[in-house]
Protein backbone atom coordinates (compact mmCIF):
# COMPACT_ATOMS: atom_id res chain seq x y z
CA UNK A 1 0.00 0.00 0.00
CA UNK A 2 1.23 3.44 -0.90
CA UNK A 3 -1.01 5.24 1.55
CA UNK A 4 -2.30 3.54 4.63
CA UNK A 5 -4.66 4.90 7.28
CA UNK A 6 -5.05 2.91 10.47
CA UNK A 7 -7.74 3.56 13.03
CA UNK A 8 -7.91 7.24 12.20
CA UNK A 9 -10.42 9.24 14.22
CA UNK A 10 -11.17 12.92 14.03
CA UNK A 11 -13.71 15.03 15.81
CA UNK A 12 -14.53 18.71 16.20
CA UNK A 13 -15.99 19.90 19.45
CA UNK A 14 -17.64 16.59 20.12
CA UNK A 15 -18.77 16.01 16.53
CA UNK A 16 -17.19 12.85 15.28
CA UNK A 17 -16.14 13.36 11.71
CA UNK A 18 -14.01 10.28 11.14
CA UNK A 19 -14.39 7.17 13.21
CA UNK A 20 -11.59 4.62 13.38
CA UNK A 21 -11.06 4.60 9.66
CA UNK A 22 -8.84 1.94 8.12
CA UNK A 23 -8.12 2.72 4.55
CA UNK A 24 -5.45 2.22 1.94
CA UNK A 25 -4.54 3.29 -1.54
CA UNK A 26 -2.30 1.04 -3.61
CA UNK A 27 0.47 2.51 -5.72
CA UNK A 28 -0.49 3.28 -9.30
CA UNK A 29 -4.17 2.93 -8.69
CA UNK A 30 -7.16 5.16 -9.33
CA UNK A 31 -9.21 4.97 -6.21
CA UNK A 32 -12.44 6.86 -5.46
CA UNK A 33 -13.91 7.95 -2.19
CA UNK A 34 -17.61 8.60 -2.21
CA UNK A 35 -20.25 9.18 0.37
CA UNK A 36 -23.04 11.53 1.38
CA UNK A 37 -22.46 15.18 2.06
CA UNK A 38 -20.80 15.65 5.37
CA UNK A 39 -19.60 12.07 5.50
CA UNK A 40 -16.06 13.22 6.15
CA UNK A 41 -14.42 12.84 2.76
CA UNK A 42 -12.83 16.24 2.58
CA UNK A 43 -11.87 15.92 6.22
CA UNK A 44 -10.07 12.72 5.36
CA UNK A 45 -8.08 14.59 2.73
CA UNK A 46 -7.30 17.22 5.29
CA UNK A 47 -6.12 14.62 7.72
CA UNK A 48 -3.92 12.96 5.14
CA UNK A 49 -2.35 16.21 4.03
CA UNK A 50 -1.73 17.43 7.55
CA UNK A 51 -4.28 20.24 7.67
CA UNK A 52 -6.27 18.48 10.35
CA UNK A 53 -4.67 16.57 13.14
CA UNK A 54 -6.55 13.36 13.94
CA UNK A 55 -7.16 12.57 17.59
CA UNK A 56 -5.96 9.07 17.01
CA UNK A 57 -4.57 6.78 14.36
CA UNK A 58 -1.65 6.25 12.06
CA UNK A 59 -1.11 7.38 8.53
CA UNK A 60 1.81 6.15 6.50
CA UNK A 61 3.00 6.96 3.05
CA UNK A 62 5.31 4.35 1.58
CA UNK A 63 5.80 3.13 5.11
CA UNK A 64 6.73 6.55 6.44
CA UNK A 65 4.69 8.05 9.26
CA UNK A 66 3.04 11.30 8.12
CA UNK A 67 0.46 11.90 10.76
CA UNK A 68 2.25 14.49 12.85
CA UNK A 69 3.71 16.40 9.96
CA UNK A 70 2.90 19.86 8.69
CA UNK A 71 1.11 20.08 5.34
CA UNK A 72 4.19 21.31 3.51
CA UNK A 73 6.22 18.40 4.80
CA UNK A 74 3.57 15.93 3.68
CA UNK A 75 3.63 17.47 0.24
CA UNK A 76 7.37 17.10 0.11
CA UNK A 77 7.01 13.44 0.89
CA UNK A 78 4.83 13.03 -2.14
CA UNK A 79 1.17 13.78 -1.53
CA UNK A 80 -0.39 16.55 -3.61
CA UNK A 81 -3.94 17.75 -3.57
CA UNK A 82 -6.54 20.00 -5.11
CA UNK A 83 -9.29 21.72 -3.18
CA UNK A 84 -13.02 21.32 -3.21
CA UNK A 85 -13.39 25.02 -4.01
CA UNK A 86 -10.75 25.99 -6.52
CA UNK A 87 -7.96 27.78 -4.70
CA UNK A 88 -5.65 29.28 -7.22
CA UNK A 89 -3.42 32.19 -6.33
CA UNK A 90 -5.33 35.22 -7.44
CA UNK A 91 -3.68 37.90 -9.51
CA UNK A 92 -0.95 35.54 -10.53
CA UNK A 93 -0.38 34.00 -13.90
CA UNK A 94 -1.11 30.40 -14.72
CA UNK A 95 2.59 29.68 -14.94
CA UNK A 96 3.34 31.31 -11.61
CA UNK A 97 0.59 29.22 -10.09
CA UNK A 98 2.10 26.03 -11.39
CA UNK A 99 5.58 27.05 -10.35
CA UNK A 100 4.33 27.02 -6.75
CA UNK A 101 4.33 23.26 -6.98
CA UNK A 102 8.04 23.20 -7.64
CA UNK A 103 8.84 25.11 -4.50
CA UNK A 104 9.32 22.03 -2.39
CA UNK A 105 11.66 20.56 -4.99
CA UNK A 106 14.06 23.50 -4.94
CA UNK A 107 16.22 25.22 -2.36
CA UNK A 108 17.78 28.57 -3.24
CA UNK A 109 17.48 31.21 -0.52
CA UNK A 110 17.48 34.98 -0.36
CA UNK A 111 21.22 35.43 -0.66
CA UNK A 112 21.53 33.12 -3.63
CA UNK A 113 18.76 35.03 -5.34
CA UNK A 114 20.26 38.44 -4.64
CA UNK A 115 23.67 37.33 -5.89
CA UNK A 116 22.18 35.35 -8.77
CA UNK A 117 24.47 32.43 -8.11
CA UNK A 118 24.84 30.00 -11.02
CA UNK A 119 23.22 27.25 -8.98
CA UNK A 120 20.22 29.46 -8.38
CA UNK A 121 19.89 30.28 -12.04
CA UNK A 122 20.06 26.66 -13.01
CA UNK A 123 17.44 25.87 -10.45
CA UNK A 124 15.14 28.61 -11.73
CA UNK A 125 15.49 27.18 -15.22
CA UNK A 126 14.56 23.77 -13.98
CA UNK A 127 11.52 25.10 -12.13
CA UNK A 128 10.38 26.79 -15.29
CA UNK A 129 10.86 23.75 -17.46
CA UNK A 130 9.10 21.38 -15.11
CA UNK A 131 6.20 23.77 -14.70
CA UNK A 132 5.77 24.21 -18.42
CA UNK A 133 5.90 20.48 -18.86
CA UNK A 134 3.11 20.05 -16.31
CA UNK A 135 1.03 22.70 -18.05
CA UNK A 136 1.56 20.96 -21.30
CA UNK A 137 0.54 17.71 -19.73
CA UNK A 138 -2.87 19.06 -18.68
CA UNK A 139 -3.29 20.71 -22.06
CA UNK A 140 -2.91 24.33 -21.08
CA UNK A 141 0.21 25.17 -23.04
CA UNK A 142 -0.25 28.62 -24.44
CA UNK A 143 -2.25 29.88 -21.46
CA UNK A 144 0.72 30.28 -19.17
CA UNK A 145 0.77 34.07 -19.09
CA UNK A 146 -2.89 34.65 -18.38
CA UNK A 147 -4.21 35.39 -14.95
CA UNK A 148 -5.22 32.06 -13.53
CA UNK A 149 -8.44 33.30 -12.04
CA UNK A 150 -9.55 34.74 -15.36
CA UNK A 151 -9.65 31.33 -16.98
CA UNK A 152 -12.83 29.42 -17.50
CA UNK A 153 -13.71 27.31 -14.53
CA UNK A 154 -12.82 24.03 -16.19
CA UNK A 155 -9.41 25.38 -17.01
CA UNK A 156 -8.90 26.57 -13.49
CA UNK A 157 -9.47 23.04 -12.35
CA UNK A 158 -6.75 21.91 -14.70
CA UNK A 159 -4.35 24.55 -13.49
CA UNK A 160 -4.90 23.23 -10.00
CA UNK A 161 -4.07 19.75 -11.19
CA UNK A 162 -0.97 20.95 -13.02
CA UNK A 163 0.14 22.77 -9.89
CA UNK A 164 -0.31 19.62 -7.85
CA UNK A 165 1.61 17.58 -10.42
CA UNK A 166 4.45 20.05 -10.28
CA UNK A 167 5.13 18.93 -6.72
CA UNK A 168 6.17 15.62 -8.27
CA UNK A 169 3.83 13.54 -6.11
CA UNK A 170 3.41 9.84 -5.67
CA UNK A 171 -0.20 10.28 -4.76
CA UNK A 172 -2.63 12.88 -6.02
CA UNK A 173 -5.76 13.74 -4.08
CA UNK A 174 -8.55 15.30 -6.12
CA UNK A 175 -11.53 16.79 -4.28
CA UNK A 176 -14.57 16.92 -6.56
CA UNK A 177 -12.64 17.86 -9.65
CA UNK A 178 -15.69 17.51 -11.86
CA UNK A 179 -17.99 19.82 -9.93
CA UNK A 180 -19.18 22.55 -12.23
CA UNK A 181 -17.85 20.94 -15.38
CA UNK A 182 -20.05 20.15 -18.34
CA UNK A 183 -20.14 16.71 -19.79
CA UNK A 184 -17.58 17.34 -22.47
CA UNK A 185 -15.17 18.61 -19.90
CA UNK A 186 -15.91 15.69 -17.65
CA UNK A 187 -14.95 13.35 -20.42
CA UNK A 188 -11.67 15.17 -20.86
CA UNK A 189 -11.10 15.01 -17.13
CA UNK A 190 -11.47 11.25 -17.19
CA UNK A 191 -8.80 11.08 -19.86
CA UNK A 192 -6.55 13.31 -17.85
CA UNK A 193 -6.89 11.26 -14.69
CA UNK A 194 -6.05 8.14 -16.60
CA UNK A 195 -3.02 9.73 -18.17
CA UNK A 196 -1.78 10.93 -14.81
CA UNK A 197 -1.75 7.38 -13.64
CA UNK A 198 -0.51 5.78 -16.85
CA UNK A 199 2.10 8.25 -17.99
CA UNK A 200 3.35 9.54 -14.68
CA UNK A 201 2.71 6.57 -12.47
CA UNK A 202 0.95 8.70 -9.90
CA UNK A 203 -1.75 7.07 -7.82
CA UNK A 204 -4.99 9.05 -7.68
CA UNK A 205 -7.46 9.28 -4.86
CA UNK A 206 -10.64 10.94 -6.00
CA UNK A 207 -13.64 12.40 -4.23
CA UNK A 208 -16.52 12.89 -6.57
CA UNK A 209 -20.30 12.99 -6.56
CA UNK A 210 -20.66 12.44 -10.28
CA UNK A 211 -21.40 8.76 -10.39
CA UNK A 212 -20.92 8.24 -14.09
CA UNK A 213 -17.42 9.66 -13.80
CA UNK A 214 -16.63 7.68 -10.70
CA UNK A 215 -17.86 4.43 -12.14
CA UNK A 216 -16.04 5.11 -15.36
CA UNK A 217 -12.63 5.94 -14.04
CA UNK A 218 -12.12 4.16 -10.73
CA UNK A 219 -10.55 0.82 -10.21
CA UNK A 220 -11.59 0.77 -6.64
CA UNK A 221 -14.21 2.64 -4.66
CA UNK A 222 -14.56 3.21 -0.95
CA UNK A 223 -17.74 4.52 0.56
CA UNK A 224 -17.70 6.70 3.62
CA UNK A 225 -20.78 7.43 5.67
CA UNK A 226 -20.90 9.28 8.96
CA UNK A 227 -17.17 9.00 9.26
CA UNK A 228 -16.97 5.26 8.81
CA UNK A 229 -16.16 3.18 5.79
CA UNK A 230 -19.20 1.15 4.91
CA UNK A 231 -18.07 -0.59 1.77
CA UNK A 232 -15.09 -0.98 -0.44
CA UNK A 233 -14.81 -2.76 -3.75
CA UNK A 234 -14.86 -2.48 -7.51
CA UNK A 235 -17.30 -0.07 -9.17
CA UNK A 236 -19.84 -2.66 -10.07
CA UNK A 237 -20.21 -4.19 -6.65
CA UNK A 238 -20.30 -0.83 -4.92
CA UNK A 239 -22.91 0.52 -7.27
CA UNK A 240 -25.21 -2.33 -6.46
CA UNK A 241 -24.56 -2.46 -2.77
CA UNK A 242 -27.89 -1.79 -1.05
CA UNK A 243 -26.15 0.06 1.78
CA UNK A 244 -24.65 2.45 -0.70
CA UNK A 245 -27.89 2.95 -2.50
CA UNK A 246 -29.63 3.60 0.75
CA UNK A 247 -27.09 6.02 2.15
CA UNK A 248 -25.85 7.73 -0.93
CA UNK A 249 -27.16 7.00 -4.36
CA UNK A 250 -30.88 7.03 -3.78
CA UNK A 251 -33.18 5.98 -6.55
CA UNK A 252 -32.03 6.60 -10.03
CA UNK A 253 -33.04 10.09 -10.99
CA UNK A 254 -34.87 8.77 -14.02
CA UNK A 255 -37.55 7.69 -11.62
CA UNK A 256 -37.88 11.18 -10.24
CA UNK A 257 -41.51 11.94 -9.90
CA UNK A 258 -41.62 15.18 -11.76
Amino acid sequence: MLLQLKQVSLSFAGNTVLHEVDFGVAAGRIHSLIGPNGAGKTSMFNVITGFYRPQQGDITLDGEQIVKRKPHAVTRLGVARTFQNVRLFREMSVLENVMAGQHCRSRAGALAAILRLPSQRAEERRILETSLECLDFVGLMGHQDRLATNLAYGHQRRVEIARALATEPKLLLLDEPAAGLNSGEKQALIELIRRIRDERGVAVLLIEHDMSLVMNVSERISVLDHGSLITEGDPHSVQNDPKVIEAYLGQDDEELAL
Partner: protein
Amino acid sequence: MTWYDSFLQQLVDGLVLGSFYALVALGYTMVFGVIKLLNFAHGDLYMTGAFAGFGGLSLVSGFLGAGWLGIFVAMLLAMLAVGCLGVVIERVAYHPMLGAPRLSILITALAVSLVLQNAALALTGGQYTAFSTDLGFGGISLGNLFLSYNQIVLVAAAAVLMIALELFVSRTLYGRAMRAVSIDKDMCRMMGINVSAVIAVTFFIGSGLAAAAGTMAGAYYGSIWYFMGFLIGLKAFTAAVIGGIGSITGAMLGGLILGLLESFGTHIPFIGSEWKDVFTFSILILVLVFKPTGLLGKSEVERM
Protein backbone atom coordinates in the same frame (compact mmCIF):
# COMPACT_ATOMS: atom_id res chain seq x y z
CA MET B 1 -1.08 54.46 53.00
CA THR B 2 -0.87 50.74 53.33
CA TRP B 3 -0.08 48.51 50.49
CA TYR B 4 -3.57 47.26 50.50
CA ASP B 5 -5.07 50.72 50.20
CA SER B 6 -2.71 51.57 47.46
CA PHE B 7 -3.58 48.37 45.65
CA LEU B 8 -7.27 49.17 45.87
CA GLN B 9 -6.70 52.70 44.70
CA GLN B 10 -4.68 51.45 41.72
CA LEU B 11 -7.45 49.04 40.94
CA VAL B 12 -10.12 51.69 41.02
CA ASP B 13 -8.06 54.15 39.02
CA GLY B 14 -7.16 51.51 36.50
CA LEU B 15 -10.80 50.67 36.04
CA VAL B 16 -11.76 54.31 35.58
CA LEU B 17 -9.06 54.85 33.01
CA GLY B 18 -9.91 51.54 31.42
CA SER B 19 -13.59 52.26 31.04
CA PHE B 20 -12.60 55.37 29.24
CA TYR B 21 -10.30 53.50 26.87
CA ALA B 22 -13.05 50.98 26.44
CA LEU B 23 -15.45 53.63 25.27
CA VAL B 24 -13.09 54.82 22.59
CA ALA B 25 -12.12 51.27 21.67
CA LEU B 26 -15.74 50.45 21.20
CA GLY B 27 -16.14 52.84 18.31
CA TYR B 28 -12.93 51.54 16.86
CA THR B 29 -14.08 47.98 17.03
CA MET B 30 -17.52 48.72 15.63
CA VAL B 31 -16.16 50.35 12.56
CA PHE B 32 -13.70 47.55 12.19
CA GLY B 33 -16.45 45.01 12.70
CA VAL B 34 -18.30 46.33 9.71
CA ILE B 35 -15.78 47.34 7.13
CA LYS B 36 -12.64 45.69 8.46
CA LEU B 37 -10.97 49.05 8.59
CA LEU B 38 -8.50 50.02 11.26
CA ASN B 39 -9.85 53.52 11.45
CA PHE B 40 -6.75 55.51 12.27
CA ALA B 41 -8.88 58.62 12.23
CA HIS B 42 -10.87 57.46 15.22
CA GLY B 43 -8.62 59.20 17.70
CA ASP B 44 -9.02 62.39 15.75
CA LEU B 45 -12.77 62.07 15.82
CA TYR B 46 -12.37 61.90 19.56
CA MET B 47 -10.37 65.12 19.41
CA THR B 48 -12.99 66.68 17.16
CA GLY B 49 -15.61 65.49 19.60
CA ALA B 50 -13.81 67.24 22.42
CA PHE B 51 -13.83 70.51 20.51
CA ALA B 52 -17.43 69.98 19.48
CA GLY B 53 -18.31 69.35 23.10
CA PHE B 54 -16.46 72.50 24.03
CA GLY B 55 -18.40 74.43 21.42
CA GLY B 56 -21.61 72.82 22.55
CA LEU B 57 -20.95 73.73 26.13
CA SER B 58 -20.31 77.36 25.30
CA LEU B 59 -23.62 77.36 23.44
CA VAL B 60 -25.69 75.90 26.21
CA SER B 61 -23.86 77.01 29.32
CA GLY B 62 -25.66 80.33 29.11
CA PHE B 63 -28.95 78.80 30.13
CA LEU B 64 -28.03 75.32 31.38
CA GLY B 65 -24.83 76.17 33.19
CA ALA B 66 -21.57 74.31 32.89
CA GLY B 67 -22.50 71.62 35.37
CA TRP B 68 -23.60 68.08 34.75
CA LEU B 69 -26.68 69.04 32.79
CA GLY B 70 -24.85 71.45 30.52
CA ILE B 71 -22.10 68.95 29.88
CA PHE B 72 -24.58 66.22 29.18
CA VAL B 73 -26.40 68.32 26.61
CA ALA B 74 -23.09 69.42 25.11
CA MET B 75 -22.09 65.80 24.87
CA LEU B 76 -25.25 64.92 23.00
CA LEU B 77 -24.67 67.78 20.61
CA ALA B 78 -21.09 66.68 20.07
CA MET B 79 -22.19 63.10 19.46
CA LEU B 80 -24.66 64.26 16.88
CA ALA B 81 -22.24 66.56 15.12
CA VAL B 82 -19.30 64.17 15.11
CA GLY B 83 -21.59 61.26 14.27
CA CYS B 84 -22.58 63.13 11.14
CA LEU B 85 -18.96 64.01 10.45
CA GLY B 86 -18.14 60.31 10.70
CA VAL B 87 -20.83 59.49 8.17
CA VAL B 88 -19.55 62.17 5.83
CA ILE B 89 -15.99 60.89 6.14
CA GLU B 90 -17.17 57.39 5.39
CA ARG B 91 -19.03 58.57 2.31
CA VAL B 92 -16.27 60.75 0.97
CA ALA B 93 -13.16 58.85 1.90
CA TYR B 94 -13.89 55.24 2.68
CA HIS B 95 -16.90 54.34 0.62
CA PRO B 96 -15.22 54.75 -2.75
CA MET B 97 -12.44 52.52 -1.46
CA LEU B 98 -14.51 49.56 -0.37
CA GLY B 99 -13.29 47.38 -3.19
CA ALA B 100 -9.65 48.40 -2.76
CA PRO B 101 -6.99 46.45 -0.90
CA ARG B 102 -7.44 46.74 2.82
CA LEU B 103 -4.15 48.49 3.34
CA SER B 104 -5.22 51.19 0.93
CA ILE B 105 -8.19 51.99 3.10
CA LEU B 106 -5.90 52.02 6.08
CA ILE B 107 -3.77 54.61 4.38
CA THR B 108 -6.84 56.60 3.49
CA ALA B 109 -7.81 56.55 7.14
CA LEU B 110 -4.36 57.79 7.95
CA ALA B 111 -4.76 60.64 5.50
CA VAL B 112 -8.10 61.50 7.06
CA SER B 113 -6.43 61.50 10.44
CA LEU B 114 -3.77 63.89 9.18
CA VAL B 115 -6.40 66.12 7.65
CA LEU B 116 -8.42 66.34 10.85
CA GLN B 117 -5.34 66.91 12.96
CA ASN B 118 -3.86 69.59 10.78
CA ALA B 119 -7.18 71.27 10.21
CA ALA B 120 -7.60 71.49 13.96
CA LEU B 121 -4.04 72.79 14.24
CA ALA B 122 -4.80 75.49 11.71
CA LEU B 123 -8.08 76.42 13.36
CA THR B 124 -6.83 76.53 16.93
CA GLY B 125 -3.39 77.82 16.12
CA GLY B 126 -2.08 74.88 18.10
CA GLN B 127 -3.26 76.40 21.37
CA TYR B 128 -4.43 74.39 24.31
CA THR B 129 -8.01 75.21 25.00
CA ALA B 130 -9.13 75.18 28.58
CA PHE B 131 -12.36 73.24 28.91
CA SER B 132 -13.70 74.85 32.00
CA THR B 133 -16.69 73.48 33.79
CA ASP B 134 -18.38 73.98 37.09
CA LEU B 135 -17.51 70.48 38.19
CA GLY B 136 -15.70 70.45 41.48
CA PHE B 137 -13.01 68.23 42.81
CA GLY B 138 -15.43 66.57 45.21
CA GLY B 139 -15.74 62.91 45.76
CA ILE B 140 -16.14 60.07 48.16
CA SER B 141 -13.39 58.97 50.46
CA LEU B 142 -13.51 55.49 51.88
CA GLY B 143 -10.63 55.38 54.21
CA ASN B 144 -7.68 56.07 52.01
CA LEU B 145 -9.58 55.24 48.89
CA PHE B 146 -10.73 58.22 46.93
CA LEU B 147 -13.31 58.31 44.18
CA SER B 148 -14.30 61.62 42.69
CA TYR B 149 -17.86 62.25 41.56
CA ASN B 150 -16.50 62.94 38.14
CA GLN B 151 -14.98 59.51 38.01
CA ILE B 152 -18.20 57.90 39.10
CA VAL B 153 -20.21 59.73 36.49
CA LEU B 154 -17.64 58.99 33.83
CA VAL B 155 -17.69 55.28 34.52
CA ALA B 156 -21.46 55.19 34.76
CA ALA B 157 -21.91 57.02 31.48
CA ALA B 158 -19.38 54.80 29.74
CA ALA B 159 -21.03 51.69 31.14
CA VAL B 160 -24.49 52.75 30.00
CA LEU B 161 -23.29 53.50 26.48
CA MET B 162 -21.40 50.25 26.26
CA ILE B 163 -24.20 48.07 27.51
CA ALA B 164 -26.73 49.72 25.24
CA LEU B 165 -24.49 49.14 22.30
CA GLU B 166 -23.76 45.56 23.20
CA LEU B 167 -27.48 44.83 23.44
CA PHE B 168 -28.13 46.52 20.15
CA VAL B 169 -25.50 44.57 18.29
CA SER B 170 -26.02 41.18 19.83
CA ARG B 171 -29.76 41.12 20.27
CA THR B 172 -31.25 42.84 17.28
CA LEU B 173 -31.46 41.65 13.72
CA TYR B 174 -29.98 44.96 12.67
CA GLY B 175 -26.97 44.29 14.84
CA ARG B 176 -26.59 40.92 13.23
CA ALA B 177 -26.78 42.57 9.84
CA MET B 178 -23.85 44.75 10.89
CA ARG B 179 -21.79 41.67 11.44
CA ALA B 180 -22.98 40.13 8.22
CA VAL B 181 -22.00 43.20 6.23
CA SER B 182 -18.41 42.76 7.30
CA ILE B 183 -18.38 39.23 5.98
CA ASP B 184 -19.94 39.45 2.56
CA LYS B 185 -21.50 42.65 1.32
CA ASP B 186 -22.90 41.28 -1.89
CA MET B 187 -24.57 38.43 -0.10
CA CYS B 188 -26.12 40.93 2.29
CA ARG B 189 -27.46 42.92 -0.62
CA MET B 190 -28.99 39.81 -2.05
CA MET B 191 -30.75 39.28 1.24
CA GLY B 192 -32.23 42.76 1.07
CA ILE B 193 -29.87 44.47 3.48
CA ASN B 194 -29.10 48.06 2.60
CA VAL B 195 -25.38 47.78 3.05
CA SER B 196 -24.62 51.47 2.69
CA ALA B 197 -27.18 52.33 5.32
CA VAL B 198 -25.77 49.78 7.72
CA ILE B 199 -22.29 51.16 7.23
CA ALA B 200 -23.50 54.71 7.71
CA VAL B 201 -25.28 53.80 10.94
CA THR B 202 -22.16 52.08 12.18
CA PHE B 203 -20.03 55.10 11.49
CA PHE B 204 -22.56 57.33 13.10
CA ILE B 205 -22.56 55.31 16.28
CA GLY B 206 -18.82 54.75 16.31
CA SER B 207 -18.01 58.41 15.76
CA GLY B 208 -20.68 59.45 18.21
CA LEU B 209 -19.07 57.30 20.86
CA ALA B 210 -15.71 58.88 20.13
CA ALA B 211 -17.30 62.29 20.57
CA ALA B 212 -18.90 61.26 23.84
CA ALA B 213 -15.52 60.13 25.09
CA GLY B 214 -13.87 63.31 23.81
CA THR B 215 -16.35 65.54 25.58
CA MET B 216 -16.05 63.57 28.78
CA ALA B 217 -12.29 63.76 28.58
CA GLY B 218 -12.42 67.47 28.02
CA ALA B 219 -14.70 68.02 30.98
CA TYR B 220 -12.81 65.62 33.19
CA TYR B 221 -9.24 66.64 32.48
CA GLY B 222 -9.95 70.27 31.73
CA SER B 223 -7.97 70.98 28.56
CA ILE B 224 -8.08 69.98 24.93
CA TRP B 225 -5.80 70.42 21.93
CA TYR B 226 -5.44 69.33 18.35
CA PHE B 227 -3.08 66.43 19.00
CA MET B 228 -5.00 64.85 21.88
CA GLY B 229 -6.45 62.11 19.68
CA PHE B 230 -3.17 60.56 18.73
CA LEU B 231 -2.25 58.72 21.89
CA ILE B 232 -5.77 57.72 22.79
CA GLY B 233 -6.28 56.48 19.24
CA LEU B 234 -3.31 54.19 19.64
CA LYS B 235 -4.55 53.01 23.00
CA ALA B 236 -8.04 52.36 21.75
CA PHE B 237 -6.59 50.43 18.88
CA THR B 238 -4.51 48.41 21.29
CA ALA B 239 -7.46 47.78 23.57
CA ALA B 240 -9.69 46.74 20.70
CA VAL B 241 -7.14 44.33 19.36
CA ILE B 242 -6.37 42.78 22.70
CA GLY B 243 -10.02 42.19 23.36
CA GLY B 244 -10.43 40.65 19.95
CA ILE B 245 -11.03 43.15 17.26
CA GLY B 246 -14.61 43.32 16.09
CA SER B 247 -15.91 42.07 19.40
CA ILE B 248 -17.82 44.60 21.47
CA THR B 249 -17.38 42.86 24.78
CA GLY B 250 -13.80 42.30 23.77
CA ALA B 251 -13.26 46.03 23.35
CA MET B 252 -14.64 46.66 26.80
CA LEU B 253 -12.49 43.98 28.31
CA GLY B 254 -9.46 45.16 26.35
CA GLY B 255 -9.98 48.72 27.53
CA LEU B 256 -10.25 47.69 31.15
CA ILE B 257 -7.20 45.48 30.94
CA LEU B 258 -5.17 48.19 29.32
CA GLY B 259 -6.26 50.64 31.99
CA LEU B 260 -5.27 48.23 34.73
CA LEU B 261 -1.97 47.39 33.09
CA GLU B 262 -1.06 51.03 32.89
CA SER B 263 -2.19 51.69 36.39
CA PHE B 264 -0.23 48.82 37.87
CA GLY B 265 2.59 49.21 35.37
CA THR B 266 3.50 52.47 37.07
CA HIS B 267 4.10 50.57 40.27
CA ILE B 268 6.08 47.53 39.36
CA PRO B 269 8.80 47.12 41.93
CA PHE B 270 12.44 47.51 40.84
CA ILE B 271 11.73 48.96 37.43
CA GLY B 272 10.71 52.55 37.07
CA SER B 273 7.67 54.00 35.40
CA GLU B 274 9.74 54.66 32.31
CA TRP B 275 9.31 50.97 31.57
CA LYS B 276 5.57 51.09 31.97
CA ASP B 277 4.80 51.02 28.27
CA VAL B 278 7.37 48.37 27.58
CA PHE B 279 5.68 46.32 30.25
CA THR B 280 2.23 46.95 28.81
CA PHE B 281 3.19 46.13 25.26
CA SER B 282 5.10 43.03 26.32
CA ILE B 283 2.06 41.69 28.12
CA LEU B 284 -0.11 42.47 25.13
CA ILE B 285 2.23 40.67 22.79
CA LEU B 286 2.30 37.71 25.12
CA VAL B 287 -1.48 37.63 25.19
CA LEU B 288 -1.60 37.56 21.44
CA VAL B 289 1.02 34.86 21.22
CA PHE B 290 -1.20 32.62 23.27
CA LYS B 291 -4.52 33.92 22.00
CA PRO B 292 -3.84 34.91 18.43
CA THR B 293 -7.25 36.46 17.92
CA GLY B 294 -7.37 38.44 21.12
CA LEU B 295 -9.13 37.55 24.32
CA LEU B 296 -12.66 37.36 22.98
CA GLY B 297 -12.08 37.39 19.26
CA LYS B 298 -13.44 34.51 17.30
CA SER B 299 -10.78 32.40 15.79
CA GLU B 300 -11.58 32.20 12.17
CA VAL B 301 -11.13 28.64 11.13
CA GLU B 302 -11.30 28.33 7.46
CA ARG B 303 -12.66 25.23 5.83
CA MET B 304 -10.55 23.59 3.26
